[in-house]
């Protein structure tokens, strides 16, 4: 739906979609009595996935005197739901009537500071300095059944993306600002950089891995102890972060030299500008880049901030 208002100074676009993907083609799930001989498993039409969402795009353009400005805001919202699955679905992040790859993991009860904390918790083979996991189903032990599913949170991708582009110009000066962000995704901050169970060889540890972990001499350490229980590196709320962010993706300030100056030296136009990319990111994520998806081990470089200045000359 495209609309224009107020002499087209305000234009809007809104889209709504409801898409059902039927018969998604995937490798079938086989008994392990067969996987040793029949690999890869035959592909079958295994399920139906529904995607619903809205997308919006609003632009305001106007000028007063020499001052031109335009503001564009776009946003999208998407949810998915698995409606049908004809194969075996085990415990995991794919399940019927849930978003595809929803958040699924343990709930932590903080770091055990003393042996008393260990004894008070469900037995799980830990020592002081280890993360305590919650016995969610109350059966007296910690296993895969104690993970919690979050029906409204996806791990792979955000539900909401938004961006805002602002262009201003006054006389020879122009300024453009691009803000971009997303919300609705949570993920675990677990990667090679912050693991507390790193290898004793072929691994370069960082100061944070020495300063942060719990130890007898650092009983208030914010990370679990080094070389501790597997609890410490499992997907628990201890490492869960909201991946929402707002990023100042690009800002550019430019100046066009007045034509009358240029005619004297026989130059068509000259523009001087300065640009900064990724100047600022607002997020609660403790890792490197909240926008990156997939394994965080593939994403071990921070987002580069870059600054440039330039001059364009047209002859």
């Amino acid at each position: 739906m495209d609309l224009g208002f107020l002499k087209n100074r305000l234009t809007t676009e809104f889209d709504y979609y409801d898409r059902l993907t039927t018969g998604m083609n995937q490798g079938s799930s086989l008994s392990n009595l067969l996987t040793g001989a029949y690999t890869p498993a035959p592909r079958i039409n295994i399920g139906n996935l529904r995607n619903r969402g809205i997308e919006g795009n609003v632009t305001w353009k106007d000028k007063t005197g020499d001052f031109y400005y335009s503001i564009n805001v776009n946003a999208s919202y998407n949810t998915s739901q698995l409606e049908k699955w004809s194969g075996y679905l085990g415990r995991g992040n794919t399940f019927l009537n849930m978003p595809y790859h929803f958040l699924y993991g343990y709930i932590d009860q903080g770091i055990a500071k003393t042996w008393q904390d260990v004894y008070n918790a469900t037995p799980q083979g830990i020592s002081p300095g280890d993360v305590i996991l919650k016995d969610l189903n109350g059966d007296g032990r910690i296993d895969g059944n104690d993970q919690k599913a979050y029906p409204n949170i996806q791990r792979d991708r955000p539900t909401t993306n938004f961006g805002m582009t602002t262009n201003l110009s006054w006389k020879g000066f122009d300024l453009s600002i691009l803000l971009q962000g997303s919300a609705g995704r949570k993920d675990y901050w677990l990667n090679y950089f912050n693991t507390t169970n790193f290898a004793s060889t072929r691994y370069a540890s960082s100061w944070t891995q020495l300063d942060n972990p719990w130890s007898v001499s650092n009983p208030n350490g914010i990370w679990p102890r080094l070389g501790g229980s597997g609890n410490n590196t499992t997907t628990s709320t201890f490492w869960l972060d909201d991946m929402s962010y707002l990023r100042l993706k690009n800002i550019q300030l430019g100046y066009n030299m007045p034509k009358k100056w240029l005619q004297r030296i026989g130059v068509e136009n000259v523009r001087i500008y300065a640009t900064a990319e990724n100047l600022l990111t607002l997020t609660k994520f403790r890792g490197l880049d909240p926008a990156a998806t997939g394994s965080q081990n593939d994403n071990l470089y921070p987002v580069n901030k870059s600054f440039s200045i330039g001059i364009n000359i047209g002859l």
Partner: protein
Amino acid sequence: MRKITFNILVIFTLVGLALFTSSCTKNLLEQQPTVDLASSSFWNTEADATTALMGSYSAVRALFDRDYYFDGQGEYYRTRTTNTSSGDMNLGAPYAGGSWNPSGYGGSFDTYYSYLYGGVNRTNYVIENVKKMLTTAKPASVANLEAIIGEARLLRGMVYFRLISMWGDVPYFTKIIQADAEVSNLSRTPIAQVKDSILADFTYAYDKLPVRAAISGRAAKPAALAFRGKLQLFWACWNKNGWPELETFKPDAAAATAAYTAAAADFNAVINNYGLKLFRNGDPGDVGTMGDATVLPNYFYLFMPIANNDPEMIMSFTHGSTGSGQGEELMRDFGSRTQESSVNAAAPRYEIADRYQSTITGDFATKLIPTAATATGARTKLNSALNPASYANRDYRMKSTIMWDYEMNLGMINLVSTGFCPFIYKTIAANVNINGVNYISNNSSSNSGYIFRKFVRNYAGQGRSDGDYSWPVMRLADVYLMYAEATNEINGPQADAIALLNKIRHRGNLPALAPAKTADKATFFSAIEQERIVELVGEGQRSFDLRRWRAIERVWCPPYGTGVWRIDTWGANQSQYFLNTSELTYQQCYIFRIPPGERNRNSNLTQNKPWM
């Protein structure tokens, strides 16, 4: 206008007819492939059946040819690491993910389990299809086709035997599976029933196989007999010693005696009816001189490709050499960086050294004294573990199997020899002057002070992944020892069994057993166990022996004990096992975990008690 309308109608009708008639083809999606060979065009000739059988051999080979990793679950061998690439059957995929320490391993064999069933499916496929061929085969083909079924049933029996010896009761099926639903609700078949089915497979194989295989690497009657004997020996052990972790199993002393007797009869037939002899007639060969490897005893060559297809190798899996993609990686696992950048994935523990007896007394030598190299006289003191003279006059199998300080082996880079290189613990790839000659020491990884010589080629020309050694899954020496064990359990030490042990000892140039060593059942059992340890080290037998004898508590320490250290030649503690360990941990060594992922799918699949 009317004419045009008519024409349109005709066209619609014709197109409609064309569409409807074609879409009415039955089984449109089940057509014969045009670019691959369809199974309906296969299974016609004996050659087809043989080709298919080779596929079974290839699949089952991958389930057994890295059994040496299993030795890490025993006391004398350390699986420092493994070289497995998941997904590649020829590169140890079935063994990927396994844990190879003396304890805590029983829950890490889910992958192995599924690959074992891969072997079951691949042998079933051959057996069922060749059976169908038999119904229409010409009389002249019958014997060969039956022999092919026999070989496939022998392979299937070996796989199920491995399954029951690790997991106890296991799902059992002999059909070709067409759909997941046929197996997804299978429950576990009681071990006694599976055992009987395996016996039937081995017996059929024994009936139908030739006396001697025409081609290297294919099975013959002695293999079927030896495996039938081994299965009955294990069955006897479980019945005699119990298997409390397998709740459905009730040991029965009478069944134990019957199975020992049947095992002894099968082993006896293997030993006496086929004219089989130990490699190079069981002669020790020449031990050479200390610190020199130009001459090595016969036992060393038993584990070189020169022994492929030797009558001692009752059953072995062949490997291709360079360029075949079918090479073994024994050198990569057992050799050091000095041999084509191998990795010492396998290492002898320090404690194996004292197991090698004296060729003079025929009994254990004075224990070595671990000594740090920095101590005065470390390399010259009597019995110092760093003094090469302490290793003189030992069982020839010692020099053939392990290397201690200043022993030499051949270095090789880029398929070319780099000459002899000494091994010196903690002196890694350094210049060493020995008697005025400069050498570069082995670039080795060891935490015991020893590395293996067994399985490491003493000639250049092949890469570390290009070995062509036929991996033995059944050797005559093992059959001798199993025969001795079975007869000893029934009637105590027997003269023929003692003679067989002495034949094996002769290979190490050891004198015959002293009468005291064969005085009664218990001492003779110790002598048999001793021979199994030194003769079969690195062949994947020890941990299965410990489990069937229920000997883990005996060789390490009882539950909640003070633990046992593995040390090095310098006397430093390396790893401690079974310290203050609960009964549950022992139980989890004696029986393996049914894969929990499969139990989530299949509610009929029960779990072994220690893993509940």
